[in-house]
């Protein structure tokens, strides 16, 4: 059966549906908040969605591709291509302002632009000052550059004592 949606696919509608696909690791973020959708191309009935991985080994990428496919299939779009594009490399600069607010409300400190580890010779350098997403205190310290997933570092608040994830700057 050919649905109306499949015969006249509008790009805006596709973007709307992509907004409903969430990041499986951080379900409060949509894949648009995360900034990993590079483009939508429509060629007749074929729809190509290009996504870019956050980290090379991010295990969520396969799930995200499947979730996009399922969301679009449910609306009657059947000719789908999900393309993976690695260049230009993803950066946290592409994360939307709304996404950053959602992250903090969820208990994960959002990335602070311009603080990526760029200089390897700056060993034991000053830690990025990260605000505690729970009590909003600025008195926090880095526990480990490597957290619960590749994209996060582990911090602890010195005031409320809560450990929390920081979505590290990646640019």
């Amino acid at each position, binding site marked *: 059966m050919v649905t109306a949606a499949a015969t006249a696919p509008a790009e805006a509608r596709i973007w709307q549906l992509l907004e409903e696909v969430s990041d499986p690791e951080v379900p409060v973020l949509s894949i648009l908040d995360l900034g990993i959708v590079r483009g939508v191309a429509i060629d007749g009935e074929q729809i190509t969605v290009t996504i870019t*991985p956050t*980290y*090379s*080994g*991010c*295990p969520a990428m396969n799930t995200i591709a499947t979730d996009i496919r399922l969301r679009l299939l449910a609306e009657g779009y059947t000719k789908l291509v999900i393309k993976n594009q*690695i*260049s*230009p*490399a*993803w950066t946290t600069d592409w994360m939307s302002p709304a996404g950053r607010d959602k992250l903090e409300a969820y208990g994960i400190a959002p990335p602070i632009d311009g603080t*990526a*580890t*760029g200089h*390897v*010779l700056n*060993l*034991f350098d000053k830690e990025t000052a990260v605000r505690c997403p729970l009590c909003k205190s600025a008195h926090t310290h880095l*526990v*480990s*550059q*490597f*957290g*619960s997933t*590749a994209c996060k570092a*582990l911090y602890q608040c010195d005031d409320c004592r809560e450990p929390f994830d920081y979505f590290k700057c*990646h*640019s």
Partner: protein
Amino acid sequence: MPAPQPEVSVAPTPSVAANPLFPFVLQLADTSLILAHRLSEWCGHGPILEQDLALANIALDLLGEARSYYQYAAELEGKGRTEDDLAYLRSAVEYRNPLLVEQPNGDFAHTIVRQFLFDNFHYELLKALKNGPDAQLAAIAEKSMKEATYHLKWSSEWMIRLGDGTPESRQRLDKALAVLWRYAGELTTPTPAETNLQELGLVPDYAALLPAMQAHLAHVLAEATVPMPTTPAFAQQGGKQGRHSEHLGYLLTELQYMQRTYPGLTW
């Protein structure tokens, strides 16, 4: 009049590809995969939880990098093999990783020294590949370099903590460095195949990477109060040409177990 050049066949495997870049991309893939596997062996055994997580994180980054290379290698080869075929269905003699990355984990100091020697090379290699002529390799390198930066910072800081730490940590670091230093030279010693590709401009000139590598090594060892090794760094090599230590066979037995036992298994 010059006699016609005889055909020289150095690689008798049937997987010799038309694209000259194929064996090099495969070598990069094998290197990242084998080190990723070694690091993943730490999972659940790290000295403290945060460092257990760090080791697993770095393993995952390298595994992701290896996948990108294997996918590209499969495409370059163009014989219908997939990334999984290349990772799971080749034997130890077909693997092209340098010997350093297949060396067993040992204690934490041993793992840190192995990682530091690799990261110091990996970071500079990716920097060069990022600006290289092959667009796909450049794209993979651009992506992986962001991650490799964190790796090098982590292993450098641990070199300093262990070297300038307690007598126990220092003694373990010294022992690890004495063993693993002999494997470091293979990373930047081109094989005949690599030399050919370097002449074509397809593979970075390793000699050009050395000044930056040596500067960082000297800086970290000085901070760690550890003297620069004086023995040759190139004593142990052959991995990049398929001559491996006995450790690789055991590693692959575990890594490839499911595919070998249940051919074609998927989930």
